[in-house]
Protein backbone atom coordinates (compact mmCIF):
# COMPACT_ATOMS: atom_id res chain seq x y z
CA UNK A 1 0.00 0.00 0.00
CA UNK A 2 1.10 3.55 -0.74
CA UNK A 3 -0.06 6.76 0.87
CA UNK A 4 -1.04 9.93 -0.95
CA UNK A 5 1.44 11.88 1.17
CA UNK A 6 4.23 9.45 0.18
CA UNK A 7 3.38 9.77 -3.48
CA UNK A 8 3.30 13.55 -3.59
CA UNK A 9 6.66 14.94 -4.66
CA UNK A 10 7.87 11.74 -6.36
CA UNK A 11 9.50 12.28 -9.75
CA UNK A 12 7.71 10.81 -12.75
CA UNK A 13 10.28 9.06 -14.96
CA UNK A 14 9.84 7.36 -18.32
CA UNK A 15 11.24 3.84 -18.53
CA UNK A 16 12.36 4.07 -22.16
CA UNK A 17 14.03 7.47 -22.13
CA UNK A 18 14.77 7.78 -18.42
CA UNK A 19 13.49 11.32 -18.71
CA UNK A 20 11.74 13.15 -15.93
CA UNK A 21 8.29 14.39 -16.89
CA UNK A 22 7.69 16.24 -13.66
CA UNK A 23 6.88 15.58 -10.03
CA UNK A 24 3.59 14.38 -8.57
CA UNK A 25 1.64 17.30 -7.24
CA UNK A 26 -1.68 15.65 -6.44
CA UNK A 27 -3.72 12.51 -6.96
CA UNK A 28 -7.27 12.74 -8.25
CA UNK A 29 -9.79 10.19 -6.95
CA UNK A 30 -12.68 8.92 -9.00
CA UNK A 31 -15.30 8.33 -6.30
CA UNK A 32 -17.40 6.11 -8.56
CA UNK A 33 -14.65 3.56 -9.15
CA UNK A 34 -13.06 4.24 -5.73
CA UNK A 35 -9.65 4.44 -7.31
CA UNK A 36 -7.02 6.91 -8.40
CA UNK A 37 -8.05 8.40 -11.74
CA UNK A 38 -4.99 10.45 -12.54
CA UNK A 39 -1.88 12.13 -11.21
CA UNK A 40 -1.38 15.85 -11.51
CA UNK A 41 2.19 16.84 -12.20
CA UNK A 42 4.09 19.98 -11.45
CA UNK A 43 7.07 21.01 -13.53
CA UNK A 44 5.50 19.50 -16.64
CA UNK A 45 4.26 21.37 -19.70
CA UNK A 46 0.67 22.45 -19.27
CA UNK A 47 -0.76 20.00 -21.80
CA UNK A 48 1.08 17.15 -20.09
CA UNK A 49 0.21 18.10 -16.54
CA UNK A 50 -2.37 15.34 -16.11
CA UNK A 51 -1.20 11.75 -16.19
CA UNK A 52 -3.90 9.12 -16.48
CA UNK A 53 -3.61 6.16 -14.14
CA UNK A 54 -3.58 3.85 -17.17
CA UNK A 55 -0.22 5.26 -18.24
CA UNK A 56 1.43 4.49 -14.91
CA UNK A 57 3.64 1.40 -14.99
CA UNK A 58 4.70 1.39 -11.38
CA UNK A 59 4.61 3.49 -8.24
CA UNK A 60 7.64 2.95 -6.05
CA UNK A 61 8.92 4.62 -2.96
CA UNK A 62 11.30 6.79 -4.97
CA UNK A 63 9.66 7.35 -8.33
CA UNK A 64 6.58 6.89 -10.48
CA UNK A 65 7.47 5.02 -13.69
CA UNK A 66 5.64 5.46 -17.00
CA UNK A 67 6.67 3.59 -20.14
CA UNK A 68 7.55 6.42 -22.52
CA UNK A 69 6.71 9.96 -23.49
CA UNK A 70 4.67 8.54 -26.39
CA UNK A 71 2.69 6.22 -24.13
CA UNK A 72 1.75 9.13 -21.93
CA UNK A 73 0.44 11.02 -24.96
CA UNK A 74 -1.66 14.04 -24.33
CA UNK A 75 -3.14 12.68 -21.15
CA UNK A 76 -6.47 10.96 -20.54
CA UNK A 77 -9.55 12.14 -22.43
CA UNK A 78 -11.83 12.40 -19.49
CA UNK A 79 -10.85 12.93 -15.88
CA UNK A 80 -13.05 13.64 -12.89
CA UNK A 81 -12.74 17.13 -11.49
CA UNK A 82 -9.91 17.30 -9.02
CA UNK A 83 -10.85 17.53 -5.36
CA UNK A 84 -8.23 17.30 -2.70
CA UNK A 85 -9.21 14.35 -0.57
CA UNK A 86 -6.49 14.97 2.00
CA UNK A 87 -7.68 17.72 4.31
CA UNK A 88 -11.30 17.32 3.28
CA UNK A 89 -14.07 17.07 5.85
CA UNK A 90 -15.65 13.61 6.21
CA UNK A 91 -19.42 13.15 6.49
CA UNK A 92 -21.24 9.86 6.79
CA UNK A 93 -24.27 9.31 4.60
CA UNK A 94 -26.35 9.99 7.73
CA UNK A 95 -24.98 13.49 8.04
CA UNK A 96 -22.61 12.83 10.94
CA UNK A 97 -19.17 14.45 10.91
CA UNK A 98 -16.21 12.13 11.06
CA UNK A 99 -13.17 14.39 11.23
CA UNK A 100 -11.02 15.22 8.24
CA UNK A 101 -9.01 13.02 5.91
CA UNK A 102 -5.39 12.91 7.11
CA UNK A 103 -4.13 10.60 4.40
CA UNK A 104 -5.32 8.10 1.82
CA UNK A 105 -3.87 4.63 1.33
CA UNK A 106 -4.12 3.05 -2.11
CA UNK A 107 -2.93 -0.02 -3.98
CA UNK A 108 0.01 1.10 -6.16
CA UNK A 109 -0.71 -1.72 -8.59
CA UNK A 110 -4.38 -1.16 -9.30
CA UNK A 111 -4.93 2.36 -8.00
CA UNK A 112 -7.77 1.16 -5.75
CA UNK A 113 -8.42 3.31 -2.70
CA UNK A 114 -7.85 1.08 0.31
CA UNK A 115 -8.16 3.27 3.39
CA UNK A 116 -9.10 6.81 4.33
CA UNK A 117 -7.25 7.82 7.48
CA UNK A 118 -9.02 10.26 9.79
CA UNK A 119 -8.30 11.41 13.31
CA UNK A 120 -11.45 9.54 14.37
CA UNK A 121 -10.46 6.21 12.86
CA UNK A 122 -9.80 4.50 9.56
CA UNK A 123 -12.46 4.12 6.88
CA UNK A 124 -12.32 1.34 4.30
CA UNK A 125 -11.99 2.56 0.72
CA UNK A 126 -15.04 0.50 -0.24
CA UNK A 127 -17.16 2.75 1.96
CA UNK A 128 -16.35 5.83 -0.11
CA UNK A 129 -19.54 7.20 -1.69
CA UNK A 130 -18.67 10.65 -2.91
CA UNK A 131 -15.97 13.28 -2.99
CA UNK A 132 -17.16 16.81 -3.56
CA UNK A 133 -16.26 20.40 -2.86
CA UNK A 134 -17.74 20.26 0.62
CA UNK A 135 -16.91 16.82 1.97
CA UNK A 136 -15.93 13.22 1.47
CA UNK A 137 -19.10 11.17 2.00
CA UNK A 138 -18.73 7.63 3.36
CA UNK A 139 -21.09 4.77 4.03
CA UNK A 140 -21.87 4.21 7.68
CA UNK A 141 -23.60 1.81 9.98
CA UNK A 142 -27.09 2.88 10.90
CA UNK A 143 -27.37 3.72 14.54
Amino acid at each position, binding site marked *: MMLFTQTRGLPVITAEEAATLGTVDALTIDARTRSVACLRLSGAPKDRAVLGWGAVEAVGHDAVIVRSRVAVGAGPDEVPEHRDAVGSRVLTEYGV*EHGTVKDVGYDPGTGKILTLYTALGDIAGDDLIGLGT*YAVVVRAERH
Partner: protein
Amino acid sequence: MITLMLASDLAGREVVTLGGDAVARVKDTVFDAAAGRITGFTLSGRGLLAGPLKQSLPFSAVHALGPAAVMIPSAAVLDGREAVLGSDAAGGGAVIGAPVITDQGTEIGTVRDVVVEAGTAGHVIGFEIAAHDNFDARRRKVFVPRGQTLAVSGEALVVPARARHFVADDLPSFGAQVEAFRAGARLPEADSPPSGPPDSDIPVSGEGDRA
Protein backbone atom coordinates in the same frame (compact mmCIF):
# COMPACT_ATOMS: atom_id res chain seq x y z
CA MET B 1 -29.86 5.06 20.48
CA ILE B 2 -31.85 7.85 18.91
CA THR B 3 -30.36 11.25 18.28
CA LEU B 4 -32.64 14.17 18.96
CA MET B 5 -32.34 17.63 17.53
CA LEU B 6 -34.17 20.90 17.95
CA ALA B 7 -35.84 22.19 14.82
CA SER B 8 -34.36 25.64 15.43
CA ASP B 9 -30.88 24.10 15.28
CA LEU B 10 -31.63 22.83 11.79
CA ALA B 11 -31.69 26.38 10.45
CA GLY B 12 -28.43 27.07 8.67
CA ARG B 13 -27.49 23.40 8.44
CA GLU B 14 -25.71 22.48 5.22
CA VAL B 15 -27.57 20.46 2.61
CA VAL B 16 -24.97 18.08 1.15
CA THR B 17 -25.27 15.61 -1.71
CA LEU B 18 -23.94 12.07 -1.38
CA GLY B 19 -21.41 13.21 -3.98
CA GLY B 20 -19.96 15.53 -1.34
CA ASP B 21 -21.12 18.89 -2.66
CA ALA B 22 -22.94 21.39 -0.47
CA VAL B 23 -25.82 22.85 -2.44
CA ALA B 24 -27.79 24.96 0.05
CA ARG B 25 -28.53 25.67 3.68
CA VAL B 26 -31.72 24.96 5.58
CA LYS B 27 -33.72 28.16 6.06
CA ASP B 28 -36.84 26.89 7.80
CA THR B 29 -38.27 23.54 8.78
CA VAL B 30 -41.86 22.98 7.67
CA PHE B 31 -44.11 20.59 9.59
CA ASP B 32 -47.40 19.03 8.59
CA ALA B 33 -50.58 20.48 10.04
CA ALA B 34 -50.57 18.12 13.04
CA ALA B 35 -46.84 18.72 13.65
CA GLY B 36 -46.26 14.99 13.52
CA ARG B 37 -43.70 14.97 10.76
CA ILE B 38 -41.34 17.22 8.88
CA THR B 39 -42.80 18.01 5.48
CA GLY B 40 -39.62 19.54 4.18
CA PHE B 41 -37.27 22.47 4.31
CA THR B 42 -37.13 25.85 2.70
CA LEU B 43 -33.62 26.72 1.61
CA SER B 44 -31.27 29.61 1.42
CA GLY B 45 -28.04 30.01 -0.49
CA ARG B 46 -24.68 29.25 1.07
CA GLY B 47 -22.92 32.57 0.75
CA LEU B 48 -22.74 35.15 3.51
CA LEU B 49 -25.21 37.44 1.79
CA ALA B 50 -27.17 34.75 -0.04
CA GLY B 51 -30.91 35.10 0.15
CA PRO B 52 -33.68 32.52 0.14
CA LEU B 53 -33.73 30.04 -2.74
CA LYS B 54 -36.69 29.41 -4.98
CA GLN B 55 -36.09 25.72 -4.46
CA SER B 56 -37.14 23.68 -1.45
CA LEU B 57 -36.38 20.22 -0.19
CA PRO B 58 -39.29 17.80 0.37
CA PHE B 59 -38.50 15.46 3.26
CA SER B 60 -39.33 12.42 1.12
CA ALA B 61 -36.21 13.23 -0.91
CA VAL B 62 -33.91 13.46 2.12
CA HIS B 63 -31.40 10.63 2.44
CA ALA B 64 -30.74 11.36 6.10
CA LEU B 65 -31.08 14.17 8.60
CA GLY B 66 -27.84 14.29 10.53
CA PRO B 67 -26.30 16.39 13.27
CA ALA B 68 -23.79 17.93 10.87
CA ALA B 69 -25.68 18.02 7.59
CA VAL B 70 -28.87 17.17 5.76
CA MET B 71 -27.85 14.53 3.21
CA ILE B 72 -29.62 14.28 -0.16
CA PRO B 73 -28.97 11.89 -3.06
CA SER B 74 -28.26 14.69 -5.53
CA ALA B 75 -29.13 18.29 -6.29
CA ALA B 76 -31.82 16.99 -8.67
CA VAL B 77 -34.18 16.24 -5.75
CA LEU B 78 -34.62 19.92 -4.93
CA ASP B 79 -38.10 21.03 -5.90
CA GLY B 80 -40.12 24.19 -6.18
CA ARG B 81 -41.21 25.96 -3.02
CA GLU B 82 -44.79 24.82 -3.42
CA ALA B 83 -43.68 21.20 -2.97
CA VAL B 84 -43.03 21.95 0.69
CA LEU B 85 -45.13 25.02 1.38
CA GLY B 86 -48.52 23.60 0.43
CA SER B 87 -51.85 25.25 0.94
CA ASP B 88 -51.73 24.65 4.71
CA ALA B 89 -48.41 26.40 5.11
CA ALA B 90 -49.72 28.66 7.82
CA GLY B 91 -50.92 25.78 9.98
CA GLY B 92 -47.61 23.99 9.70
CA GLY B 93 -45.39 26.93 10.31
CA ALA B 94 -46.93 28.41 13.40
CA VAL B 95 -46.27 25.68 15.95
CA ILE B 96 -43.59 27.69 17.69
CA GLY B 97 -45.10 30.26 19.98
CA ALA B 98 -48.41 28.42 20.23
CA PRO B 99 -49.82 28.26 23.76
CA VAL B 100 -49.68 24.92 25.58
CA ILE B 101 -52.92 24.09 27.37
CA THR B 102 -53.74 21.06 29.50
CA ASP B 103 -56.89 19.07 28.92
CA GLN B 104 -58.06 20.59 32.19
CA GLY B 105 -57.92 24.03 30.67
CA THR B 106 -54.79 25.45 32.29
CA GLU B 107 -52.30 27.23 30.13
CA ILE B 108 -48.89 25.97 31.16
CA GLY B 109 -46.61 27.72 28.70
CA THR B 110 -45.79 28.21 25.06
CA VAL B 111 -44.10 26.03 22.49
CA ARG B 112 -40.47 27.12 22.18
CA ASP B 113 -39.16 24.53 19.79
CA VAL B 114 -39.87 21.22 18.14
CA VAL B 115 -37.75 18.14 18.86
CA VAL B 116 -37.12 15.93 15.84
CA GLU B 117 -35.32 12.64 15.40
CA ALA B 118 -32.14 12.36 13.34
CA GLY B 119 -32.25 9.84 10.53
CA THR B 120 -34.63 9.20 7.70
CA ALA B 121 -38.09 9.27 9.29
CA GLY B 122 -38.52 12.97 10.03
CA HIS B 123 -40.76 12.25 13.00
CA VAL B 124 -41.53 14.90 15.55
CA ILE B 125 -40.53 13.44 18.91
CA GLY B 126 -41.75 16.15 21.22
CA PHE B 127 -41.80 19.80 22.05
CA GLU B 128 -39.70 22.16 24.07
CA ILE B 129 -41.98 24.30 26.15
CA ALA B 130 -41.32 27.59 27.88
CA ALA B 131 -43.15 26.81 31.09
CA HIS B 132 -45.16 29.24 33.15
CA ASP B 133 -44.54 29.38 36.88
CA ASN B 134 -47.75 27.55 37.63
CA PHE B 135 -46.53 24.47 35.75
CA ASP B 136 -43.03 24.28 37.03
CA ALA B 137 -41.59 26.98 39.23
CA ARG B 138 -38.05 25.62 39.06
CA ARG B 139 -37.59 25.31 35.36
CA ARG B 140 -38.05 27.73 32.52
CA LYS B 141 -37.98 25.14 29.78
CA VAL B 142 -39.17 21.57 29.72
CA PHE B 143 -39.52 18.87 27.10
CA VAL B 144 -42.76 17.00 26.52
CA PRO B 145 -42.86 13.85 24.37
CA ARG B 146 -45.23 13.99 21.46
CA GLY B 147 -46.86 10.75 22.55
CA GLN B 148 -48.20 12.64 25.54
CA THR B 149 -49.80 15.39 23.55
CA LEU B 150 -53.43 15.18 22.62
CA ALA B 151 -53.64 17.59 19.76
CA VAL B 152 -51.59 20.19 17.97
CA SER B 153 -52.67 22.96 15.70
CA GLY B 154 -51.33 26.32 14.71
CA GLU B 155 -53.33 27.76 17.58
CA ALA B 156 -52.51 25.55 20.54
CA LEU B 157 -50.91 22.39 21.83
CA VAL B 158 -53.12 20.39 24.17
CA VAL B 159 -51.40 18.04 26.61
CA PRO B 160 -52.83 15.84 29.36
CA ALA B 161 -52.65 17.47 32.77
CA ARG B 162 -50.43 14.64 33.96
CA ALA B 163 -47.87 15.47 31.25
CA ARG B 164 -45.76 16.95 34.00
CA HIS B 165 -44.64 13.45 34.79
CA PHE B 166 -43.18 13.01 31.37
CA VAL B 167 -41.13 16.16 31.09
CA ALA B 168 -37.35 16.30 30.90
CA ASP B 169 -34.85 19.07 31.45
CA ASP B 170 -32.44 18.61 28.61
CA LEU B 171 -32.27 16.90 25.27
CA PRO B 172 -30.09 13.88 26.25
CA SER B 173 -32.28 12.93 29.18
CA PHE B 174 -35.32 13.51 27.02
CA GLY B 175 -33.89 11.07 24.47
CA ALA B 176 -33.47 8.42 27.17
CA GLN B 177 -37.02 9.01 28.29
CA VAL B 178 -38.43 8.71 24.79
CA GLU B 179 -36.54 5.45 24.33
CA ALA B 180 -37.98 4.07 27.55
CA PHE B 181 -41.40 5.25 26.44
CA ARG B 182 -41.01 3.42 23.12
CA ALA B 183 -39.72 0.28 24.77
CA GLY B 184 -43.11 0.06 26.42
CA ALA B 185 -41.75 0.70 29.85
CA ARG B 186 -43.94 2.67 32.16
CA LEU B 187 -42.42 6.09 32.55
CA PRO B 188 -41.35 6.96 36.07
CA GLU B 189 -43.55 9.26 38.03
CA ALA B 190 -40.60 11.52 38.62
CA ASP B 191 -38.52 12.87 35.80
CA SER B 192 -35.17 12.24 37.41
CA PRO B 193 -32.60 11.20 34.82
CA PRO B 194 -29.46 9.80 36.45
CA SER B 195 -27.16 11.79 34.18
CA GLY B 196 -28.79 15.17 34.29
CA PRO B 197 -27.33 18.36 35.69
CA PRO B 198 -27.30 18.56 39.50
CA ASP B 199 -30.48 20.55 39.78
CA SER B 200 -32.38 18.29 37.43
CA ASP B 201 -32.95 15.36 39.74
CA ILE B 202 -35.35 17.08 42.05
CA PRO B 203 -38.39 14.85 41.86
CA VAL B 204 -41.63 16.53 40.95
CA SER B 205 -43.82 13.61 41.87
CA GLY B 206 -46.17 13.94 44.77
CA GLU B 207 -47.28 17.41 43.80
CA GLY B 208 -50.55 16.11 42.52
CA ASP B 209 -52.11 17.14 39.27
CA ARG B 210 -53.24 20.68 39.03
CA ALA B 211 -56.71 20.92 37.68
